[in-house]
């Protein structure tokens, strides 16, 4: 994805790319474990998706700062992965504590998903892609948030599919995860349709 001189234009391009054409789950295959693990009910899927948006946006912002003000000036760009993992883990812990105190209802709703995000590859993926694509601060944050929105879209769509699949007639040997993986694959194929979309 090339960087546009027009900031707004580039932000739109980044958003559309992150949500549809380069959806984290369906075309980059990042964050597949919560995608399969937390998608049996639409409610929990939406909760997980919202938590991911939140953490991805925040992680993008903080990791950009860490990268540009600490790692790059010191010539330590090779430590990015390590430093980002540290940042994400600490961030998730902090957010968890904050929510427990400030918004207990949201904390209850997110439940186990918040700590699960610590080890979510989509979050690490988004911050590393920010570096790879050489995004500016604003672009990074937008990429993080829209990447999260793409994740939310994917997981909510998929959980709705799963809720229906449960009551449909399929061969017994497909019971459980097999039918789930097949439907995930079909959904990903459908999303491949977006890849023909050219953005400006």
């Amino acid at each position, binding site marked *: 994805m090339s960087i546009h001189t027009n900031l707004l234009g580039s932000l739109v391009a980044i958003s559309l790319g992150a949500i549809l054409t380069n959806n984290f789950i369906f075309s980059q295959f990042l964050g597949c474990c919560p995608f399969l693990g937390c998608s049996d009910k639409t409610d929990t899927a939406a909760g997980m998706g919202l938590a991911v948006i939140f953490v991805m946006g925040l992680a993008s912002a903080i990791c950009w700062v860490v990268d540009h003000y600490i790692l790059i000036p010191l010539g330590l760009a090779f430590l990015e992965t390590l*430093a980002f993992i540290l940042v994400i883990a600490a961030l998730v812990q902090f957010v968890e504590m904050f929510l427990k105190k400030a918004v207990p209802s949201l904390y209850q709703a997110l439940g186990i998903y918040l700590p699960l995000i610590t080890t979510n590859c989509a979050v690490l993926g988004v911050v590393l892609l920010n570096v790879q694509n050489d995004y500016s601060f604003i672009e990074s944050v937008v990429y993080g948030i829209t990447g999260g929105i793409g994740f939310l879209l994917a997981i909510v769509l998929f959980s709705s599919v799963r809720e229906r699949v449960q009551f449909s007639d399929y061969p017994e040997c497909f019971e459980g995860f097999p039918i789930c993986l097949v439907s995930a694959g079909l959904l990903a194929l459908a999303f491949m349709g977006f890849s023909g979309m050219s953005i400006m």
Partner: protein
Amino acid sequence: MNTILFSILSLGILGGVFGGLLAFASKIFHVEVDPRQEAVRNCLAGANCGGCGFPGCDGYAKAVAAGEAPTNKCVPGGEETAKKLAEIMGVEESSAEAKIAFVRCSGGDLNAERRFNYSGPEDCRSAMLFGGKGNKTCTFACIGFGNCTRACKFDAIHVENGVAKVNRNRCVGCGACAEACPKKIIELIPKSQKVMPACSSKAKGAVVIKSCKVGCIACTKCQRECPSDAIHVIDNLAVIDYSKCTGCGHCAEICTRKIIKVL
């Protein structure tokens, strides 16, 4: 050399700063959790059987710590747990009477008449859908497809010869089987109870004789002969008053249909 030093320093400092921030944040955002809740949770049996009426052991522990639930609800834990919880909560102990499940039917394949041959799904509820009351002529009989077995988390109830039977050594009295039984013929009785009539039929004696070899025909012999007035025939069925029963076993001896069992 510098690179190594910088790497170590920067990551070390970064880690230190984050660690410090988290430690600081945990102080600021500290949420008081009742320490008794954890203490209570540790004393519970941990089977998550739901016998207390709360969603799992954690739910019950929370309710106990908040003073919203009595301390004697943990059935698998029994008296011992109730005592410990009462100690933690500083309330007077009210012991939980140990309970055990009992199937009030003994009419299996050998004894109860069948109305039709059922070949649908092996599930008591679906068998109930046919003709309303299951596959046996007696409308109170155990269907024997083991919904209770599947509900039991302790492997304590099994279908033998077409009728469910409780393994008294394993049963903890959580009541999951009683809940799962569509016929509602599984009853929680005090563990100390010595005799029980194994029949649920409220049909008239003449009807029972036709449908089952081991059904209560309401002859009232037990009622007449009970030395402590603990057994009565109510709605054509012998019912024991647990508070009066001394467990002498006389009724079991004289029962004309041999349905009063000594446990």
